[in-house]
């Protein structure tokens, strides 16, 4: 499969009054052409920072990209100047952000907001652009497009606003859409509408989507591949089926154990939470960041960060338990979670 985007060994940190926060600490993943990759992780795991780095949206003054390569169309996006990046943003890669309430300009008609990137990136005439905007509004499932074109964001509901944001993102037919928690602010029935829309668009337009979420339900719903992030590192990645049916990393086990399972027989199983809290990224641990909360932690885990082990060609996990010298805990076999 052809790789559209590849992120290698990305390190990002922020200067704060309390010191330097190492938000992203060596992230590797790729997005294939035409697929949906989900990055899943809890707050503070660095998933949004990763997305912002790809889009070149980090605040220059306080952030530092100490190493890493972001390859898109055989070029490293991190070496692009502001002007070069401007050409990519919105036309080849676009972003759908989390909060539809704040990411639209309240003083601009929605039609004009969608028109903005067409104006910037295409040489269509005014008339052509308007018909393209109406076409986009129809595409994302907004009724009465002529009327909606000249309405302001406050006249639309949350779900409609999210549809407008998707229309903005689609305007120039980008190859990659980065969706940062696109449904977190929405109710479940509206969330279902938006997820179905994204899936449908991805199939029809053959766009790749990088979706960032904390909700494993959303992952199962839309993604083909998953990268699980914890404390600034991708600890496990693979196809959705592999990760849910055959998870390898203890953190992934923890995440899956924390959510209630579908009950078949009516019996209630107690949830298995991950005890403790994520590490402080001002002074991240030198070994595996999950070691302090991991039931299976060994001496080596505290000392050294494990490398990726490839369980299949596409299923990778960073855990010392995969080392041939590690004692295999009995539970490991069971943790394949019989459903």
């Amino acid at each position: 499969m052809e790789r559209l985007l590849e992120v290698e060994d990305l390190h990002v940190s922020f200067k704060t009054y309390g010191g330097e926060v190492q938000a992203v600490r060596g992230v590797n993943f790729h997005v294939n052409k035409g697929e949906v990759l989900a990055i899943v992780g809890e707050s503070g795991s660095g998933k949004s920072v990763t997305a912002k780095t790809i889009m070149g949206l980090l605040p220059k003054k306080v952030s530092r990209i100490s190493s890493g390569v972001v390859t898109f169309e055989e070029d490293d996006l991190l070496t692009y100047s502001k002007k070069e990046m401007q050409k990519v943003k919105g036309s080849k890669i676009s972003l759908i952000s989390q909060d539809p309430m704040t990411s639209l300009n309240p003083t601009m008609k929605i039609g004009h907001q969608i028109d903005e990137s067409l104006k910037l990136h295409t040489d269509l005439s005014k008339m052509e652009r308007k018909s393209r905007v109406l076409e986009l509004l129809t595409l994302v499932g907004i009724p009465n497009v002529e009327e909606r074109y000249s309405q302001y964001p406050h006249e639309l509901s949350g779900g409609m606003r999210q549809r407008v944001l998707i229309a903005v993102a689609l305007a120039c037919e980008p190859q990659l859409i980065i969706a940062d928690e696109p449904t977190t602010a929405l109710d479940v029935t509206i969330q279902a509408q938006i997820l179905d829309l994204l899936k449908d668009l991805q199939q029809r337009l053959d766009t790749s989507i990088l979706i960032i979420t904390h909700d494993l339900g959303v992952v199962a719903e839309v993604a083909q591949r998953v990268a699980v992030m914890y404390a600034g590192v991708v600890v496990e990645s693979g196809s959705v089926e592999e990760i849910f049916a055959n998870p390898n990393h203890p953190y992934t086990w923890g995440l899956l154990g924390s959510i209630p399972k579908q009950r078949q027989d009516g019996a209630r199983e107690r949830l298995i939470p991950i005890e403790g809290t994520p590490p402080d990224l001002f002074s991240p641990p030198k070994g595996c960041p999950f070691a302090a909360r991991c039931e299976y932690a060994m001496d080596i885990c505290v000392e050294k960060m494990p490398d990726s082990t490839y369980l299949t060609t596409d299923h990778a996990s960073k855990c010392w338990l995969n080392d041939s010298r590690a004692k295999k805990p009995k539970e490991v076999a069971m943790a394949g979670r019989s459903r």
Partner: protein
Amino acid sequence: MSDSLVDVQQVKKHFPIGGNQTLKAVDDISFSIQKGETLGLVGESGSGKSTLGRTIVGLEGATSGSITYKGKDVSTLGRKEARETNRTMQMIFQDPQASLNPRMKVMDIIAEGIDAHGLWKGKKRKERVFQLLERVGLQADHAKRYPHEFSGGQRQRIGIARALAVEPEFIVADEPISALDVSIQAQIVNLMEDLRQDSDLTYLFIAHDLGMVQHISDRIGVMYLGGMMELADSDQLFQETLHPYTQALLSANPVPDPAVTNSRERILLEGDPPSPVNPPSGCRFRTRCPHAMDICSEVVPEWKEQQAGHWVACHLYNE
């Protein structure tokens, strides 16, 4: 229903919003909560689930209808009795950041209810707080700290300790886990389940996460636009769903299992919920209902017990 702890009868809560308009946040709801059970309440934002919870504990006065607690109508209680009732009904709030006073130490936050009801003083009060902190999984020396020194999950534990301080019997938990990360949510849910068993508590658990609600609740009520649509035993609600809104809600809920996701059929609801200022005539769900009939716009469907313990308000089930 001899053992019902809370009995809600035809309760309405309307808010005047100016211009002679009222927002019908809760509109004619009747149900009861049994002693020792966890009743889950689900619904989308604006469905009135929080307002209903706040009305039951008395943070809002009901516009009409009656709320009976332990066999007594709460609106007719004398001052002393009302105080006692207030003590036994407590609330856990959604946002542990906003519901703890940032300028108070944890000791005083937890002991606020103890002081207000004059339960313990001096050394006893201190010991009680330490004991509560340990019970919710924190340490006694946390009492000296301020809320900002804690993580979200720890703050929610403080909120739970505060609710427990006055030895309540009934707790309304308004989205207690929505602001927390997945792994921390499981910690809090387990804690709440343990506390219920140890202290014989009754919960009204308000949330929008269907998976978690199914996990923790004995029975579940489904609200839409200020009205109760369906109420049943939680397994029954998921297996024999009656109301079209509940069916749509359950099918929209993302299930963290790709095998289920790919095999099930989705009922997609069109459009957005209407405004509670001007709800549709008849059945409030009819504008988005795939099964809407003529009668739905004319007559409000009756709230009735369709099967034993399974309540629904829908014309599809009226002869």
